[in-house]
């Protein structure tokens, strides 16, 4: 693999989403494309790897910029819509 030869992280080379989960309280997602739907129970985020769905309670987009989106609330499930 090219990324292994160059020593560059895969998500940077392929622009794949990177998800960082802090307990069940917070999720930070880098390399996303856009927000598809935002609700209290679920949030759907478009990425290059597919539509990432977050399910939980009292979900809220705490901060969003071009590079990353931070979601707070009680997170129960994270999955790719197409892969389920």
């Amino acid at each position, binding site marked *: 693999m090219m990324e292994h030869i160059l020593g560059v992280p895969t998500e940077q080379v392929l622009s794949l989403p990177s998800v960082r989960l802090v307990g069940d309280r917070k999720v930070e997602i880098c390399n996303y494309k856009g*927000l598809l739907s935002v609700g209290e129970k679920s949030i759907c985020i478009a990425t290059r790897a597919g539509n990432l769905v977050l399910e939980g309670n009292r979900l809220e987009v705490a901060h*969003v*910029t*071009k590079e990353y989106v931070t979601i707070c609330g009680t997170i129960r499930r994270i999955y790719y819509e197409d892969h389920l």
Partner: protein
Amino acid sequence: MKILPYCFGYVQIEVRGACPEKWINIAIRRGIQLWDLTRSGNDAFRLCLPLRSYRKNTRSICKKVGCRTRVLQRKGFPFFVRRFKYRKALAISILLACALVGLLSSMVWSVELVPGEGVTRENLLAAEKILGQTGVRPGVFLQTVHTREVASAILQDQKDLSWVLVRRKGTKIYVEMEGGVQTAPEVPSNAPCDLAAPKDFELVKCTVFRGTPLYKVGEIVHRGQVVVSGLEQGLRASAEVEGRTWYTVRVPVQEAVEQIEKTGRSQTRSAFFLFGLKIPLPSKTWLPWCKKDFGANCTKTTEVKYWSFPNGTRLPLGVTYTKEIETKVALRELDGGEALAYARIQGMHLLDEKVPDTAEILSTASSVKRLENGTQVYEITAECLERINMKIVDKL
């Protein structure tokens, strides 16, 4: 609360339309930061964005997507300041208060002396005097206080202090002191010498460590005479000598003395003080005589009342009450008994100054003598027992 958005101002808006997610995605692509994004209905979102981005981009995004926006709240410093547009006095007051707090927090509020072991009242008074001379007092700027210099000045002046520390803590200056004697290291000398009497005395005890004693106990030694010899044998004489000494003072017996008497007029003046600044307050007992010749003949007592917190912390402000009592100098004639009593008191004062602190007074004797010119004198003689500091004579 985010500090930067607060500084530049931000708005909370509601985006309502058929597809508000589109509005959000376009805003993100244009580099607008969004936060606290929540759904407020089936077709609406509530979110926060910077004021500048809102003014610049909202209208064009709405046109493109077909959404409507409504400002719910305006927050941040620019909106806070706008409140004072028609309240200039309030704004100026706030600014002045901030400036005052800044000014007061950069000043010395109080100077506290922290005496340690062996520190006497005289040490504290002397330290206070030096603090005054070096300009360390309430009201001066903290930056102007050079703690090390002040500490060394106190230490140099007070030889019976072993350690002084001046430190700043908040707006207070603490001066910590420890007693003790700074002893210079003794330079050993082996040069031969004799020990001579510095004054006349009767030898009571002589403990010789080196050398030969030349007088016996009970003999009178006169000033300058060698008591312990060492030069001839090539020794450095060393001895502890105790002797009986006599101190005599003479005071003329006066028939009249100048005395300070109270005229019976007095007044109390009060002043408000803030740091070093004193603001006189109008006094009800303001007498006319104080303006004319007051000051030359008066005694003053000043009482300072600091305002303090319930926990005892003193503030650098309060009220001073100065009681001024008018006095006059009057010549008073003394009768025989009074004149002698007055001379005796004066004599005792003089004797107290003359006798060294280390000496033990064994007895005193007094007599009245008439001199050749006819004046009467009161003579007091004190017989003392003291350790004699012998004079070193190292040359023949």
